[in-house]
């Protein structure tokens, strides 16, 4: 056998390697936590855009008293809603379009038993459940006849799910 003068070097090397590994592990681990702040920024942006679009559609053009969204709900005109909302959220400055899909419902209260009903308004693509959708809504007072009722002033809530695919 040769002498064992190098034993301490080996132990020191081991200790140093361990310290480096632990440091690297701690540092990498500390910086790679996913936060809602990172993942939800695009959601919040989509939410703002959707509610802005609904606000805009619920604004009456100059000189009229009824907004486009109000007449859409009063006439159950889902096709018009799809066209208007689609052009509002998906048009860009350039020729290429965004790929936002959406589903819209109208919620109202049935006066006979005070229950809340939702009727579909428009569906640009069927929901499968794996979309990362955000929810926006817009309040409106409309003059509309609902089933089992006469035509009168009612409050409805237009609710839209929108997601990018």
């Amino acid at each position, binding site marked *: 056998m040769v002498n064992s003068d190098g034993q301490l070097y080996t132990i020191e090397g081991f200790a140093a390697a361990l310290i480096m590994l632990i440091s690297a592990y*701690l540092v990498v681990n500390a910086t790679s936590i996913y*936060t*809602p702040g990172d993942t939800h920024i695009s959601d*919040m942006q989509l939410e703002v855009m959707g509610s802005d679009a609904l606000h805009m559609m619920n604004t009456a053009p100059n000189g009229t008293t009824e907004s486009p969204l109000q007449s859409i709900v009063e006439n159950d005109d889902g096709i018009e809603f799809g066209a208007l909302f689609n052009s509002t959220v998906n048009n860009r400055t350039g020729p290429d379009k965004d790929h936002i899909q959406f589903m819209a419902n109208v919620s109202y*209260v049935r*006066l006979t038993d005070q229950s809340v009903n939702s009727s579909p308004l428009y569906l640009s693509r069927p929901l499968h459940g794996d979309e990362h959708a955000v929810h926006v809504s817009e*309040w409106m007072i409309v003059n509309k006849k609902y089933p089992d009722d006469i035509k009168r002033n009612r*409050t409805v*809530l237009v609710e839209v799910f929108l997601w990018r695919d």
Partner: protein
Amino acid sequence: MAGLNDDAQWIVLMGFLVSFSLFFLAMILNQSVVVGQTTAEAVSEFPKEDIRGVRSVIIESYMKGMPDTASDPSVTNVQNDIRILSLSRQNSIVYFPPKTTIGDYTYIDIHYNNGVTAYNETWRSP
């Protein structure tokens, strides 16, 4: 260090210094991430658009000039709808007592509460 000679002790010292500062930096980064998380949660939890919407529809229900008589209780119906819809579709309780008129101005009290955020306002007509 392995007992050969002690000439380079200061190198070991510097090594210690560097590793300690690395640990401190890691700790600060760790803390800042947690701060970002709570802030982001608070922001995404705050029902900004819900409050805006319910506030404007309550004001509209009073100020639109709809009739509120026995034969046409439009205001009562519309406001009843607002309470039920906001409870069932937005998980929030809204309460608004009848408007009061003092002098030239109309005042509307609006109370909103969804269990996390409470919002109270006395709106005055312009």
